[in-house]
């Protein structure tokens, strides 16, 4: 602590910051953690393939919806859902491919790829969070539409 003329003076903020002057310890990634990342490569590749299949099914679903002879206004909600699904699946696929590539680099012994994996993890979870929020909102919208339709049916029936 710095010497002051007043012994009863409260400590300054800088005095409490012990690490501010001293060099900080580097945050090392343990070898076991790298092994976990390398072991996960196969599963990330499989998930990327499944996500690609999901994307293909979404495209098929869009074609099926568009080929149905119904009122275009009735198609808005399913098409919005399919568009959101497809965009999210494409973004997830992109981050998974990046993740898988970095995991393979670690498997080959290039430990510096851990930074790329951390970036891919962050991006993947961010897109998943957006998907969860969008999915929940869309689902709530469907439930509200269902409840309104039920009420209207009851009113017309009465």
């Amino acid at each position: 602590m710095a010497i002051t003329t007043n012994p009863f003076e409260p400590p300054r903020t800088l005095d409490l910051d012990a690490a501010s002057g001293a060099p900080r310890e580097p945050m090392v990634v343990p070898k076991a953690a790298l092994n976990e990342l390398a072991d996960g490569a196969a599963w990330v590749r499989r998930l990327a393939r499944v996500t690609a299949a999901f994307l293909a099914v979404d495209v098929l679903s869009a074609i099926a919806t568009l080929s149905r002879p119904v009122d275009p206004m009735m198609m808005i909600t399913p098409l919005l859902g399919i568009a959101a699904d497809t965009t999210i699946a494409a973004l997830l696929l992109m981050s998974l491919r990046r993740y898988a590539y970095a995991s393979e680099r670690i498997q080959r012994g290039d430990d510096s790829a851990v930074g790329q994996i951390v970036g891919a993890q962050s991006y993947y979870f961010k897109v998943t969070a957006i998907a969860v929020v969008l999915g929940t909102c869309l689902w709530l919208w469907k439930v509200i539409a269902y409840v309104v339709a039920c009420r209207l049916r009851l009113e017309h029936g009465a």
Partner: protein
Amino acid sequence: MTTTELDDGTSEPQQPVALTDWQLGRLRKAAGWARFVAIGGLTAAGLAAAATFVFPEQIITSDGVVVVSQLIDVIVFCASTIGAAVFLSRYGRNVTLYLTGDPPALTRAFRHVRRFFMLWTFAAGFAALMQFLSVWKNF
């Protein structure tokens, strides 16, 4: 400590990898998003389960027949989402421990991410299959 093979067949010790400040920031963000996904996923699973009880007509036809595929869909969605939420929250907690100075916690965090990917591969595969069957039926 790992080793790298040199041209003459000998090996030299490889320096352990240290994360840069930017990478640590990304790791912190990843943990935050993972926790968000865990909470959001649990909320979605809870809503889906509640809706099944509140609107049973979604899985039970007017003849009183339970639509098994719909029921299985809801059960698989809830179970896999709860499992994924557990793995992701553990990942977030262990990353926080690592950032506060517990290096082995990073190994645990990455193990939980690997398990999350394993579980999610099956869940996403099932969802893709169900969607494909639904499209096939409506074609």
